[in-house]
């Protein structure tokens, strides 16, 4: 790739300090460092550095999302055509899903990265890699029928208000992808909930019901979906959330590479299972009766656990805090599901709420450490 480096080498001086296009340096360097890990060497501190950088971290998460994305696209076609009773081959189903889904991905990336680059130039800081993940997560947690302009506006809101207003990647309080979803949910409720949005064209085609399992349960309907279907993901829902199997593959990859916190994942599942189990005993409505372990299989629970609760920026940062944070997300997600009939998916609200409380959890965990140190001081002072 020497020739490409030669080309870049020609332009690099113009974007450096004192160059013609100095102002656009951050945007240029965003592209340059995407193509090439730069020649920067250590100046102070340790002379050698771990091979990992934030780009690699973020790409690992994108890799982990590939199984759910591919399956999700196939499932878009499968849900649509199977309800119509039309048999189609794998590639036709996948192709149909891709045509519906890829525009959402493109809109999300173009709008989001556009804002990131604009802010980088405006503020003169480097383009951060955080949006590589958010950009794919956002379409994955939206209903497939969401009109593209609504998607674009949600992205604008999430990136500007949710992230840049706080200082960019690493500084935000709320998970940007979930914030985009929450924004769309409250602004365009008709396109974001109900029983007509979760399967492609369910709103405009007779014979297609876009109802999710949780939606049906909330209305007190019988659910006859087999556990295998739930596990494999042959059910309606947001694009990425349906297949437990694919999510688990992504989770295994994240845990194996050491990028995501296993503590948060485990704690969330424990919290969810524990709460759902208590409700099984209480046994008041259809959602309470729904077996506790099936609660973990349907809806956005597992997707949120693996890909959103573990977002290190918005999660609790201390080890103890991660356990508390995860557990409470699990508890809250099931609570919202069971008690909020109008909106039977609680994962989004649970994670966003705990995002807000994460700093408080950390504060008390760290306070414990401070107290220990103070006690030690008092002990030696009196000794």
């Amino acid at each position, binding site marked *: 790739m020497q020739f490409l480096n030669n080309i870049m080498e020609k332009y690099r001086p113009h974007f450096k300090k004192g160059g013609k296009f100095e102002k656009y340096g951050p945007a240029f360097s965003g592209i340059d460092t995407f193509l090439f890990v730069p020649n920067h060497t250590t100046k102070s501190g340790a002379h050698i550095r771990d091979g*990992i950088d934030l780009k690699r971290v973020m790409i690992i998460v994108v890799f982990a999302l590939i199984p759910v994305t591919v399956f999700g696209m196939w499932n878009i076609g499968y849900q649509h055509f199977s309800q119509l009773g039309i048999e189609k081959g794998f590639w036709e189903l996948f192709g149909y899903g891709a045509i519906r889904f890829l525009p959402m991905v493109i809109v999300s990336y173009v709008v989001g990265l556009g804002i990131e680059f604009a802010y980088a130039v405006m503020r003169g800081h480097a383009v951060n890699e955080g949006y590589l993940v958010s950009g794919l997560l956002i379409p994955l947690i939206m209903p497939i029928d969401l009109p593209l302009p609504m998607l674009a506006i949600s992205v604008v809101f999430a990136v500007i208000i949710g992230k840049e207003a706080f200082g960019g990647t690493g500084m935000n309080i709320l998970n940007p992808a979930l914030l985009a979803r929450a924004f769309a949910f409250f602004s365009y409720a008709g396109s974001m909930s109900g029983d007509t949005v979760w399967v492609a064209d369910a709103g405009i085609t007779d014979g297609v019901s876009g109802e999710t399992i949780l939606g049906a349960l909330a209305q007190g309907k019988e659910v006859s979906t087999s556990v295998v279907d739930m596990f494999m993901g042959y059910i309606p829902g947001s694009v990425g959330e349906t297949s437990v199997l694919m999510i688990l593959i992504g989770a295994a990859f994240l845990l194996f*590479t050491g990028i995501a916190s296993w503590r948060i994942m485990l704690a969330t599942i424990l919290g969810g299972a524990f709460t759902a189990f208590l409700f099984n005993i209480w046994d008041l409505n259809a959602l309470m009766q729904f077996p506790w372990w099936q609660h973990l299989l349907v809806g956005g629970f597992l997707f949120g656990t693996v890909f959103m609760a573990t977002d290190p920026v918005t999660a609790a940062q201390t080890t103890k805090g991660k356990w508390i944070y995860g557990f409470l997300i699990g508890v809250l997600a099931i609570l919202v599901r069971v008690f909020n009939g109008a909106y039977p998916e609680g994962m989004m609200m649970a994670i966003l709420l705990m995002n807000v409380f994460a700093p408080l959890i950390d504060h008390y965990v760290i306070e414990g450490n401070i107290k220990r140190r103070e006690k030690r001081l008092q002990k030696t002072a009196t000794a």
Partner: protein
Amino acid sequence: MSQDIRIKKGLNIKLKGKAEKTLSELKRTEVYAIKPTDFQGVIPKLTVKVGDAVKAGDILFYSKANELVKFASPVSGSIKEITRGAKRRILEIRITADSEDTYKDFGKKDPTKLSTEEIKDYLSEAGCFPYFIQRPYDVVVDPNDSPKAIFISTFSSAPLAADEAFALQGQEEAFQTGINVLKKLTSGEVHLSVNGDETSFFNKIEGAIVHRVFGKHPSGNVGVQINKIDPINQGERVWTLKPQDVAIIGRLFLTGKYDATRVFALAGSEVQKPHYYKAKQGVNLELLFQQQVQNSNVRYINGDVLTGKWVRKNNFLSFYNTLISVIPEGDHYTFFGWMPFTQNNLFSMSRTFLSWLTPNKEYELDTNMNGEERAMVLTGEMESVFPMDIYPMQLLKATLVSDIEKMEKLGIYEVAPEDFALIDFTSSSKVEAQAIIREGLDLMIKEVG
């Protein structure tokens, strides 16, 4: 009395070019130098001028802040020149060495028969106080203090580190005498930490509490050991020394001579035959590098690759140094270098490289940053290489905003930059943790003292 310490967190970085345990005498060089920049926070006041003749052990300068902290000449000869940097800051005091050293005679002493005050005077006269490093702050001690305890780590777990037990072969008596001296300087204990996986003469030293330490790097860091043995509280002072420096002090009492001979390892992937050398402190290294290093685009590091100082080829062996590392420079571009599972010649704590498949491979790492600095995003990676009861990320953030009260509460008194070296290394956001902590400590010295 012995107590085992097990360090569970940390990271061993295996590098190519570990020094073989053979010792050669480094030929005496024409010029030696003492570098005041080796001493954190010391402003030198010269007591010699160019042309003066000095013996080994004669005082060259003292610390402006404390006249008892004196710095002695390692060799006999005449002052060649005094090199200065920006704002006329003194960088080096160069000495043209005689062909053989003549020593200033301080008189043999038996430490067990001296009072603490007598010992302190004796050490000060012979320029030995710079070997005492104080925690908190990681600076040269104030001889007037009475430390709570004295800690010596007899091993380093850093990459390519020199084996101090090997380096001190034949110096066992001097080391024991040094310990006897230290015993007189503290009202508390002298703690000696030894590598739990090995047995050496350190295990048999009398007069000190021997702690066997097990675990990955930074288990050899004295700061980590202090944190496990007897953590520092606000207002307390402890002193630390390096093992070879204890032997220098021991030799002083045994012979009456200030003999700053040390054994150091020359190591790293760029060194042709990495092994140990014996030389006087301050020896010029240029000839050695010429013989041992072929490539030109390399980095010479006075110290280990995580905490050492970047020096030029014609530099001198630093005051405290027992290791010189030479590794390749990394000023190259790497096409799509961030793509997971590529660039498997790099080492990583994460499993985003295939290098986890070869845990025993010795790596040939260069100085490339492997990425750009970013805001702190990942959590838990700092904690996994930081074995103290301290929250490193929170302490770093408090230090970044100079929140002194918070820094105190979070344990700034217990840390030194070297304890954050692995955080420098592992950080995916490329945080310069050592630099941040050093600035924080300097701020504390200024504001709290």
